[in-house]
């Protein structure tokens, strides 16, 4: 079901099936709902077989990049004498994204189970769940779930009585957006400043504590359990558009719309139906103006683009954006796009780790210019400067925070230029007034 609203009939509840069901949070309740059968099954399989099933299912990383999970797992080479680690990236800080939070709040054992399976599949003895510092409530549930799993012998030296060791630790971040970047997350986990590391070496070669590491998103790991239980074919069959995007995806929707919340749909679902039917459409008297479909760092879509989108990795790219983390931010005609973009830029300027020059200086400069335009102090040259800065900030830094800041600026100026120009020319058009008139 979707949360907090009741499930819409067009949703496909796989991961969100027990959202809102308080009993599912406990070990007993989770077992009653079929929990830990997937782990039991996994421990009876060879790690290579598990990787193959995941590969076959077509599951791709749900954190934003969409890298095939099975292939990522196959980069790990067990038996090289080194310790191996699994990291679960639960540092869900992308503005507008709150799908992992719901998984951890309502079905913490799904993640524990997913971590245990993942760790076993890649030959890791230890899994870390790195939870965003602000997620105080999910942290409580996750810690409780891990504690219960240890007490029940599901985790520990003799995991589920198989003699195989699986340890899961919950680690609380200190509240930095950048620690959601996988290499920054590893630094943070090690107790260092959360700065992204230069790649190569990639985590599979040198990750946490310099050892081979795989990092997976919460939703990715949670999805492994149903895949193991119901099979790759079942998962692969959930696909409405491009066969490279399979399964279901959680979308967290916020902004100016009637029913914000978390929704789960099959890959390839029409975005138009999603917005107007599932999410209830715009508020009274308003019209949708723009959508940021995958968290703050993907290009902004106009409504024409959004309404033509099929919701999968390729579908969003085809319509000028990206699936990203699945954090849908809807903006209606009462909002000023300049305000929205300036606020996004301020966020990135605040969260830049300060390593790379382009990001450290560029995000702040972008913010200053945008806020100047917002306040009616901009010039037409500022728009050219913004685009030039954004160009310099793209593809030149260690991580993609810099690109993420440039993205809404470039797409915003390109697609909503008249709003910028109106502010620059002193015509402070309040679009809701215009709409009413």
């Amino acid at each position: 079901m979707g949360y907090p609203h009741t499930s819409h009939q067009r949703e496909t509840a796989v991961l969100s099936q027990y959202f809102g069901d308080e009993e599912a949070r406990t070990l007993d309740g989770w077992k009653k709902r079929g929990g830990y059968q997937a782990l039991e099954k996994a421990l009876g399989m060879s790690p290579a077989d598990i990787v193959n099933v995941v590969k076959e299912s077509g599951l791709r990383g749900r954190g934003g990049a969409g890298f095939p999970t099975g292939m990522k797992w196959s980069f790990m080479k067990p038996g090289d004498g080194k310790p191996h680690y699994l990291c679960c990236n639960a540092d869900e800080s992308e503005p507008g994204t709150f799908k992992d939070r719901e998984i951890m709040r309502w079905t913490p054992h799904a993640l524990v189970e997913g971590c245990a399976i993942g760790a076993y599949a890649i030959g890791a003895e230890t899994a870390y769940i790195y939870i965003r510092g602000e997620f105080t409530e999910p942290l409580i549930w996750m810690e409780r779930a891990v504690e219960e799993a240890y007490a029940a012998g599901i985790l520990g030296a003799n995991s589920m009585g198989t003699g195989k060791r699986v340890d899961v630790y919950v680690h609380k971040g200190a509240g930095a957006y950048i620690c959601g970047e996988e290499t920054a997350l590893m630094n943070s986990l090690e107790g260092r400043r959360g700065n992204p590391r230069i790649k190569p070496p990639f985590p599979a070669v040198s990750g946490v504590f310099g050892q081979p590491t795989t990092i997976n998103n919460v939703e990715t790991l949670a999805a492994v359990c149903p895949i193991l239980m119901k099979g790759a074919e079942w998962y692969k069959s959930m696909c409405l558009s491009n066969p490279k995007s399979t399964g279901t995806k959680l979308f967290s929707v916020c902004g100016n719309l009637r029913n914000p919340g978390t929704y789960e749909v099959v890959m390839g679902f029409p975005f138009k139906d999603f917005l107007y039917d599932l999410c209830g459409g715009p508020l009274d008297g308003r019209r949708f103006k723009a959508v940021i479909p995958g968290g703050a760092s993907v290009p902004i879509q106009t409504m024409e683009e959004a309404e033509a989108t099929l919701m999968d990795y390729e579908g969003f790219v085809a319509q000028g954006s990206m699936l990203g983390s699945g954090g849908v931010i809807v903006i209606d005609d009462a909002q000023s796009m300049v305000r929205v973009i300036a606020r996004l830029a301020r966020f990135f300027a605040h969260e830049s780790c300060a390593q790379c020059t382009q990001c450290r200086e560029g995000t702040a400069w972008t913010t200053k210019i945008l806020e100047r335009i917002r306040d009616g102090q901009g010039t037409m040259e500022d728009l050219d400067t913004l685009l030039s800065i954004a160009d310099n900030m793209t593809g030149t830094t260690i991580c993609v925070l810099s690109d993420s800041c440039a993205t809404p600026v470039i797409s915003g100026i390109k697609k909503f230029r008249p709003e910028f120009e109106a502010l620059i020319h002193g015509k402070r058009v309040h679009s809701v007034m215009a709409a009413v008139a």
Partner: protein
Amino acid sequence: MAEAKMVNLTIEGRPVSVPEGTSILEAAKTAGILIPHYCYHPSLPIPGVCRMCLVEVEKAPKLAPSCATSVAEGQIVHVHNDRTLEARKGVLEFLLINHPLDCPICDQSGECELQDFTYQEGRADSRYRDPKRFNPVEDFGGDVMYVPNRCILCTRCVRFMDDLAHDTVLNVSERGDRALIGKFEGKDLTHPWAANVIDLCPVGALLSKDFLNKARAWELDRAASICPNCTQGCNIMIEVRDNSVARLKPRPNEDVNKFFMCDYGRLNYRWMNRQDRAELPMVRNGAGLASADWEAAIHMAANLLRDAKPFVLVSPMLSNETLFLLTRLLQRKGGTGVFRVATGDEAPLPGVEDLALRRDRAANVQGAEILGYTRSDSPLEDLGSDDILVIADDDLRGMPVEAAARAKAVIVIGTAIPDGLENIAAVLPISNFTEEEGTFTNLRGRVQRFTQAKAAPGQARPSWLVLGDLLGALGAQDSFYLPSDVFADLAAARTEFSGLSYDELGMRGLPVMNAEGGAVR
């Protein structure tokens, strides 16, 4: 050792062949191409953060940071094409938006990499119209002050303190454009090697308090030299303004000091400028000393030494050449050669093997020992009343005057006249090591050249020249026109130095025979 596999690539159209694993930036250096960079330093871990060294590698989608990208067979690298120049222009503009552009009052001006690269390929103007970030100047302790407004956050200083000094004092505080170099609570840059962060800083953010506002970089004359303040023999540059040493800077030498020198060595230079120097040759005239011309003074000294046994007290700050010529003096009639050394605590730079401020605080202790001088804490103990005491640049400070007064007569060959000695027969003023050329032997037996940095005061002459003249007056047949001639004689006379010459030594030095790795051809 197995030969490293060589990788062939093309950088800016030039074929380059370097060992596998070399970075593109280092490979370019071998072809004489400097890829502009800030955060990269060969002695420090590579963070790849300044994004200045981005180059275009053909077939790669993105520009690559050349400091952190290894060479690959057949790579074609462009350093100065439109795309990379545009990228660097962008970085330079970003670096300058919050920079105060206060070059006219900045000590780094003239030797600033931000200045250099901006002149070279930066924008002529800035498009930045908003207020600049401001942070107050901070005292970092030791000799270091921090001007955060000029900082480009390259983190070289942080990495030096963490990885080489093993003293975690500095950090990057704050995030985004608020970021600045911070100091951990209660910590200061008091590590004995901390001032190296000043040299590592590519801009004017970390400055020497000692050198603050003393000179502009372009007013300084520079001479390659060796730090005389301990037996490590760090390679240095002596930087002189108006015939006065203004500061010492380390000079890279992979085999001795890498890129560094300690704070003690760096700041202990004021004695090189002392004003109470012996400037004129002098001879005894009744109760006092009267100035004389060089011939008269040399003649007087030669007369005293002609049939007497000399007792030579040398300074371990003298060059191999001078110490060698003094051994010639000792060989004539027999005699004793002694020296003493000031000592202090050893202070290593833990991240670099065999690099420390050494206990013995003089440049040429090893040279003096190889040449047969005896080290002693009370060197004049055995001085006899028939001896002619030759004091070669020891100021006798800390020694009882009576010890030297015992001698029949004293000949001073030095930079200054020792206080309170009434039996001085002749004074032969010499230049100090900044005013002449020569070699020192460091504690590992490495012979290294130093060159003249400034002019000697008055009529003072190079020590090797004075001793050559003195030996000539005593009938020696050799004639020395250059310090290299003296060294050639030394190399011929002493097996330890055999095979060495000024040309062979170059400016990086070579080990003497018997020293580790000292297989002299």
